[in-house]
């Protein structure tokens, strides 16, 4: 994931980052902190430091956890994702005042079950925002959409989609693949296609 961000990621556009890490994955937390440190050094500007948060999320299913209890832990995971997207997770501090919305503009993920929960949670919130706008009679007025979701399929997937990928193909707003044989896949006829983006991890 960090390799993707290292490549030409524009920090003047994506000014505030929230890193979502599975609980127990201390290595990823450490890597995210190191990564932000290098950005801060590059930019050499005080206002850009600490423009990030790292939140940890319980796993949807821990390794060797029973499939009987997995639905409950998945719900717990989903709930925590909702809190993060609403800016109410305990690991999050209040956003700097220049940000008008608590929701992230864009969610990018390449990952496992937690990523699936996060993208589903984003869609869930957007559905409510849409219903609210429709009910309050503002449905016809265009508005900038937040919580856009981007899924990058694993580089290890050459000809077949991963389980996360198969779930998210009809759901994510943008579905990117790193190998040509996977380009142009769609969940069913008439839906958007997966897009080939080259090797973004290298």
């Amino acid at each position, binding site marked *: 994931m960090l390799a993707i961000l290292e490549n030409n990621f524009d920090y003047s556009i994506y000014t505030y980052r929230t890193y979502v890490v599975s609980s127990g994955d201390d290595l990823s937390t450490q890597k995210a902190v190191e990564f932000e440190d290098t950005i801060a050094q590059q930019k050499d500007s005080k206002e850009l430091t600490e423009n990030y948060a790292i939140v940890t999320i319980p796993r949807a299913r821990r390794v060797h956890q029973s499939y009987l209890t997995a639905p409950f832990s998945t719900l717990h995971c989903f709930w925590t994702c909702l809190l993060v997207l609403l800016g109410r997770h305990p690991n999050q501090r209040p956003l700097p005042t220049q940000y008008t919305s608590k929701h992230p503009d864009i969610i990018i993920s390449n990952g496992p079950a937690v990523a699936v929960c996060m993208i589903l949670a984003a869609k869930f919130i957007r559905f409510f925002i849409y219903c609210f706008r429709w009910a309050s009679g503002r449905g016809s007025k265009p*508005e900038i959409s937040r919580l856009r979701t981007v899924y990058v399929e694993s580089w290890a997937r050459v*000809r077949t989609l991963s389980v996360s990928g198969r779930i998210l193909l009809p759901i994510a707003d943008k579905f990117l693949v790193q190998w040509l044989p996977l380009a142009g896949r769609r969940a069913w006829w008439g839906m958007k296609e997966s897009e080939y983006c*080259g090797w973004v991890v290298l």
Partner: protein
Amino acid sequence: MVVKLCLVTVGATAPFEKLVQAVLHESFLAELEKHKFTRLLIQHGKGGQQVFDAYRAEYESGNIDHGIEIGGFDLRPNMIPYLRMVRDDPGDFQELGMVISHAGTGSILDALRAGVPLVVVPNPDLADNHQQELADQLAGLGYAIIGKLDDIPSTVGQAVKQGERAPFFRHGQKGREIPMGDELSWVD
């Protein structure tokens, strides 16, 4: 003295004793010597510890004779410093070596980023066929060589040959930007 290193890595997740065994076999070591390698460094993991210790015991008792310096370690969280030792350097203390890796994504990516000749050895004990798919695809593109456990020695010559056309596999281009700017200005 010029160092020419062959780095073997089995990754962190699954044990891969057979690969450790294969690279400690005399036929492989002879092949390394033939291609002027000076060092063999093995990241053997917990599973390969026993094989490696047994080999070392035999070496110290003086039963084995070859000109290659062999080292081994269990696991390091960051393999990049070791991959740098495989690269050729302008100061001419290092010659371009080679990497023999299991088919794990992380190890393959690290080697590709370093731009060194890479041999990928899929683990037949793992029923993970998408790793095989990845290895086949990379071999088709010329980025890697597929090694079979029963024929590791022949990969040395192939890797040296791949190193000769270094500019081709060492593309050195920066990764691509993710095309997602259009999502930011989405209006609905």
